């Protein structure tokens, strides 16, 4: 049974993660009045990168490849700890939420060091910004998890986002609403989306995540793109579960509901990207501190 669940989890993740990127791009195109690239364009991009060769700077070492590798492996492993909608996570234990958060810390460590490996100032700039914003986003995540733990009374992601969530909305709806807002903002930061970062910009001085992977090429860059698509899905899964806290018990139906939720989330991200401008760099810390305060407020509401 565990094996079957494991395979289903990995299947959903590996198959549908790039689709979300396509949906976001299509939404943005529609808002801009263009017809946009095909929905499956991210898959074509990955396939094309797969066939290409590598180009390495003579400054780089093996650490340069460690970045893409962790960027791919970490979302894969983290997905095994998080429930996909009503489908419970294959692996679950008390305190797995900390492992979940820290796995992404590991990915950030190696993405940033790989960026510094090129010896380019631009990538140093991106790495510095990435680790700075993470410092401000991390407490928010923990506050959100504390609220969820308090509402559900559990210590594993499966209980935090388990069947008790629907009842939780009745007793602590306001807190959970705030947590959903906070998690959405963290999702935008972590996946380098507008208003925090612009994945499509080509002005190095303003980029964060994109500038860190500027010198990667070929299959290594493919791993990064695939990894970031999976990261969006893995980090979006708790949010979707929070907003759709029901389950039917039917495996297929639950999976479809989850996928529909993820697609809706992707559309929402696209709408936000189309309707907002990128924040000035100095404003981003202020927004993130505000998010932390919001999550603290959610905790106060639930503790009273």
């Amino acid at each position, binding site marked *: 049974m565990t094996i079957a669940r494991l395979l289903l989890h990995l299947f959903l993740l590996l198959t549908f993660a790039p689709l979300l990127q396509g949906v976001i791009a299509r939404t943005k195109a529609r808002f801009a009045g263009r017809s946009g690239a095909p929905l499956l364009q991210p898959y074509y991009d990955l396939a094309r990168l797969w066939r290409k060769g590598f180009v390495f700077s003579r400054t780089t070492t093996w650490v340069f490849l460690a970045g893409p590798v962790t960027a791919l492996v970490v979302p894969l492993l983290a997905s095994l700890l998080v429930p996909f909608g009503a489908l419970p996570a294959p692996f679950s234990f008390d305190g*797995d939420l900390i492992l979940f958060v820290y796995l992404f810390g590991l990915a950030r*460590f190696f993405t940033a*060091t790989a960026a510094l490996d090129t010896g380019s100032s631009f990538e140093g700039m991106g790495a510095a910004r990435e680790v700075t914003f993470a*410092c401000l986003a991390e407490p928010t995540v923990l506050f959100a998890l504390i609220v969820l733990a308090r509402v559900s009374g559990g210590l594993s992601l499966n209980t935090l986002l388990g069947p008790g969530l629907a009842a939780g909305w009745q007793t602590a709806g306001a807190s959970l609403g705030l947590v959903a807002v906070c998690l959405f903002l963290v999702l935008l930061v972590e996946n380098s989306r507008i208003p925090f970062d612009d994945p499509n910009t080509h002005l190095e001085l303003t980029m964060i995540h994109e500038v860190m992977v500027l010198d990667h090429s070929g299959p290594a860059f493919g791993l990064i793109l695939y990894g970031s698509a999976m990261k969006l899905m893995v980090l979006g899964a708790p949010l979707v579960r929070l907003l759709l806290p029901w389950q039917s018990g039917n495996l297929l139906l639950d999976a479809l509901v989850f996928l529909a939720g993820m697609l809706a989330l992707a559309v929402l991200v696209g709408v936000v990207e189309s309707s907002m401008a990128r924040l000035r760099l100095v404003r981003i810390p202020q927004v993130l501190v505000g998010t932390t305060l919001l999550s603290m407020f959610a905790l106060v509401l639930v503790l009273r």
Partner: protein
Amino acid sequence: MSWLLAGIGLIMTAGLSGLLAGRQGGGGEKPACALLLAGTLLAGGGIAGALAGKLEASLRLPWPVPGGELALGIDGISALFLFPLLLIAAAGSLFGLGYWTRRHHPRGGRRLRLFYGLITAAMLLLLVARNGLLFLVAWEIMALSGFFLITTEEHKGEARRAGLIYLAATHTGTLALFALFALLEQAAGSFAFPAGGTLAAGGAPLFLLGLAGFGLKAGLMPLHIWLPGAHAAAPSHASALLSGAMIKTGIYGLVRLSSFFAEIPPWWGWTVLALGALSGVLGVVLALAQHDIKRLLAYHSVENIGIIALGLGIALLGRSHQVPELVLLGIGGALLHVVNHGLFKSLLFLSAGSLIHATGTREIDQMGGLLRRQPWTGVCFLGGAVAICGLPPFNGFVSEWLIYLGAFRALRQGPLALQLAAMVAPALALIGALALACFVKVFGIAFLGEPRSDGALKAREAGPAMRWPMALLFGACAWIGLLPWTLAPLLQRAALDWSPLAAAVSLAAPLAPLHWVGLGGWLLVLALAGCGGWLAGHSRRAPRDVATWGCGFARPTTRMQYSASSFADFLAGLFRCGLLTERHGGRVEGLHPGPAELSTHTPDAVLDRVLLPASGKLAWLFTWLRAVVQNGRVGLYLLYLILTLLALLGLVLLT
């Protein structure tokens, strides 16, 4: 016990061989190292035997000092401090063979080895002492040997200054400990350590004195003043011992002291939590702003002491509110972090030593590109960096995970006041993220990119005497990270020794997920190795002869790379009210600006900002008073005599 005593004896006398050897030649380097290694093996065997119940675990001998007794004992708490101490001392001693050779450092080498053995032996004795006077004697030997280790390079003004501040700080702490043990003697009836949980409540002065005395040694903010300078000035393997083991004796003191009491008032736990959060956050922020690699690592010691204090605070709160799970998780996490910090911090100090040895500088901004030149050192430093950031699959994650779990459990049980302890989790998250930023900076600037100076360009890998100790510590870090459940029995035993309350909970349950954590680590390692191996094989034939794209700039230089200061600038700017970084220069003016210079310096928040100015003012005040009172006029001195006599007369008349 006799094994342990024999080991202590060997370690204590290890450095003496250097004094007997002639000034020429090796100066007894190898015999000293061999004696120390033999001593650590003996002592380690003795401790393991005592824990397994095969050798006796306590010893009492009369001692002609009034109130004193040679009372020794080994229990779970001591063992968790003893094992890392032995490992660090042995690794550091081996490392010293390559790092501090007689040829390169003709001065002070013999003295260094003498006090290195002496401080190790004193710490061993301190950790097994069960009598207040014996504890204080060992404490003082340790403190003084520490001074001589710090001032090994006494010809440098910086080392002398650091030593002086250390001496003042440690003796202030000892003063508090004298008062503490005097009060403890009154409360318990003798200088022998009372059994766990036997002292009645009302120990507020004891707790505060202990917090001051032990906190000064441990480096809890704001008592950390001596720590950054001292760790930076000592030779790297001595810094590893000071940071990895010596500051932990302060934590040991706090843990041991709190085990004596039957009841713990909640404000003890809250005080420790508040100090821990302060040390954790401010320690890592100050570390972020440093560009001297050893000073930076020293501030990380303050940070990690803060994390340990967070765990201890949770455990104390668990005892106040009678929640056994919190006691087990809190003290287990704190003690495991003691072990872990000992391992990864000494690993980091040793690899930093290897860097300094190769490049001849402590400035991170002078390094760069060292991973190519020192692949072994680089991998060891990277392992230590991942571990200290608390990331899986290394050991730092396991202990932080236990503390997190304690914080989350606090949410589930007990009154509202206890639930606020869950705030530890976001604090730890902030500390962890900041530490990550800091170590990305150190590793990225020092090891990656292009060499920024001639020293870095000509750096060579360290010899085997320096590589093996690093590999040993690296292995220990990986072992705890990948097989964490092997330590669970020892942690449970220590928790039981600390508080009988821990017996109330089924010991296995809260620590059971350690298997899962270990499994997660293995999965991670295997997946990374598989994917990385595939990618490395796939890219083997790729061209590697192009330069990094420099935005079309025709003649890039290595000085255009991001530096440590520029990397930390954004974050340091966010914390500027706590850091007050000083910037000198850096302004360019006009349409065709000439050359400009920028330098930044972040002084210590307590020592340089508060204590030194305040004591400067005080010194000025007393100088002025003395000049007024003692001004050289004989008539005035006679007046003082007459006034004193009159005052005495008045006193006699009144009484």
